[in-house]
């Protein structure tokens, strides 16, 4: 697939998303849109590590919360107010990335289920720390400084900031997927020991992806903190965040570039909308769980890979029709080995 052909739909979607707040001025709709785009960035970042490497992290809320608290504590202790607080966002990403280094060095020594369990454990350690340390203000949390923005367009800067981060992350995910680094990650996903035997420095590669992923997630956490206006341990370090980003990536297509973005836009919008409409907070969570089950049952590989398969098999059928069922895909000049092995 040529780069131009792949980039075109992305540019169209980006243009639509960029125009969205200009067309829709409804406060509820733009609020939902900010969350949806923030989660698009978070799910895409999660996918750069978990989707490509196959190491399913359920501890990314550690980076999200770290980013949120970095901005919260920075704004409080350095008495930053107004727009200046946004200068702290790179720091939020950097601190989250710094946390990812020791976290990764420990957790990435183990694989599969053990890795998942360790990420969950580290996540709860961080939540407990946020509850108990004095510099995080414990369960009272930290209030964000007030922004003197017009209420009518209050969401707009947040939206564009989130959109920039999401677009940048998706672009990065796209570059990584086609890169040497991305190929090594996907090789690790398929067979880590074999990859090591072909010269792949597995620990370095995995840790690199973990840190990149953490940086973006921290950034998203920082923006989220301002938007929501408060950092509380149970919301900054929220186990539902971990499940949500994983579900979004699974829904759209784990390891694909656009799947997690699509999954986040669909699921986060739907969930926010239902939360507002139904007012019962738990019902939307039950629906989230039910959706997870449906995805695992019927779309185990996600929307984008499955629909891609349907389209290509449909095309193949179209192409095969004229030469009366002769499959034209086999290479004639392959010689004996192509027909050599029997069992698949």
């Amino acid at each position: 697939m040529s780069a131009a052909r792949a980039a075109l739909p992305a540019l169209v979607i980006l243009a639509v998303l960029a125009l969205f707040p200009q067309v829709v001025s409804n406060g509820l709709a733009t609020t939902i849109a900010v969350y949806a785009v923030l989660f698009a960035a978070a799910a895409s970042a999660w996918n750069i590590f978990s989707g490509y490497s196959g190491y399913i992290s359920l501890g990314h809320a550690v980076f999200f919360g770290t980013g949120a608290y970095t901005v919260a504590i920075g704004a409080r202790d350095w008495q930053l107010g107004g727009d200046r607080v946004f200068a702290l966002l790179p720091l939020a990403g950097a601190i989250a990335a710094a946390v990812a280094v020791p976290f990764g060095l420990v957790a990435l020594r183990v694989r599969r289920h053990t890795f998942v369990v360790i990420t969950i454990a580290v996540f709860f350690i961080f939540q407990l720390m946020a509850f108990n340390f004095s510099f995080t203000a414990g369960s009272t949390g930290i209030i964000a400084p007030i922004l003197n923005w017009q209420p009518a367009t209050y969401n707009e800067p947040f939206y564009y900031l989130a959109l920039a981060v999401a677009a940048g992350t998706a672009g990065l995910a796209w570059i990584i997927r086609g890169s040497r680094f991305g190929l090594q990650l996907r090789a690790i996903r398929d067979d880590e020991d074999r990859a090591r035997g072909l010269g792949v420095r597995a620990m370095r590669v995995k840790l690199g992806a973990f840190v990149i992923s953490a940086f973006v997630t921290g950034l998203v956490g920082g923006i989220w903190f301002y938007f929501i206006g408060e950092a509380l341990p149970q919301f900054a370090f929220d186990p539902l965040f971990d499940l949500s980003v994983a579900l979004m990536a699974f829904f759209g297509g784990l390891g694909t570039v656009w799947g997690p973005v699509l999954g986040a836009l669909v699921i986060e919008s739907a969930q926010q909308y239902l939360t507002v409409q139904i007012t019962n907070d738990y019902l939307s969570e039950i629906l989230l769980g039910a959706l997870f089950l449906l995805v695992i049952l019927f779309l185990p590989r996600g929307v984008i890979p499955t629909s891609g398969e349907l389209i290509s098999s449909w095309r193949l059928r179209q192409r095969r029709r004229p030469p009366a069922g002769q499959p034209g895909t086999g290479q004639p000049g392959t010689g004996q080995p192509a027909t050599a092995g029997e069992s698949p």
Partner: protein
Amino acid sequence: MTAALRVEGVAKAFGGVQALSGCSLEVAEGSITGLIGPNGSGKTTLFNVITGYERVDAGEVYRGDRKITNLPPQRVFALGIGRTFQLTRIFPRLTVLENMLVASQHRSSGHGSSQHGSSQHGASQHGASEHGAGRRWRSPLARAGGPADRRRAMELLEFTGIEGHAAALADTLSYGQRKLLELAYVLVADPAIVLLDEPAGGVNPSLIRHLAARIRELNAAGRTFLIVEHNMDFVMGLCDRITVLDYGTVVAAGPPAIVREDPRVLDAYLGADDDDADAGDDDPAGGHE
């Protein structure tokens, strides 16, 4: 002349099972050395020890004069030792070409294998050069596989005869094609020494002949091979020297004609004391240990 690969007094136990004990062998530069022995005699463990997948309890492994004992797999590979696995291991969700490109980053830059003629893929005299040292730095975010890497990968796929499947997912390959792919991607990085673990196991006779011809061609171009195999015709026909393992120790070593007649070898293979375990060993299809 120093051996390309030397194992000295290696011991390795798994719990109470002594897989290797006092195991020593030499693989001469430019040779095809066969490693045979009954199931459970420690052949695969020895491969794992050499290539860094298992740590030794005692003993040393040398690549030329350089000690490589207990180096991790990626370092051993960078020093020019490639291997295949008994249960063929490929990357099922990557395309065949992508499989090839995983290893391509580790070719030394001044090496230029792509300049060789199409029938001389193995012609590079590699020596013990350190891949990591003289390598040009390439950005990890650069696209996987530059034109030279892709050309080299396609050459090797043609050499093994699976170039028609380059764009297919490796998952769709047949068993025999997977064996060929594994051989091909190990060759991408131009290792001076190639360890093959049962290359002919479970493969049909015509593919076995194809494989033997490829190995001979690569060997003629200077590459050293160490081959574990149960198919005696394959081993005896291909190898210059044969080493026999039994209970984790070398019991015989020498040219095929001599090893074949060695009473200790006959004993290890046909010994009356544990005939049940040995019954399948002459099966050309090769059992899995």
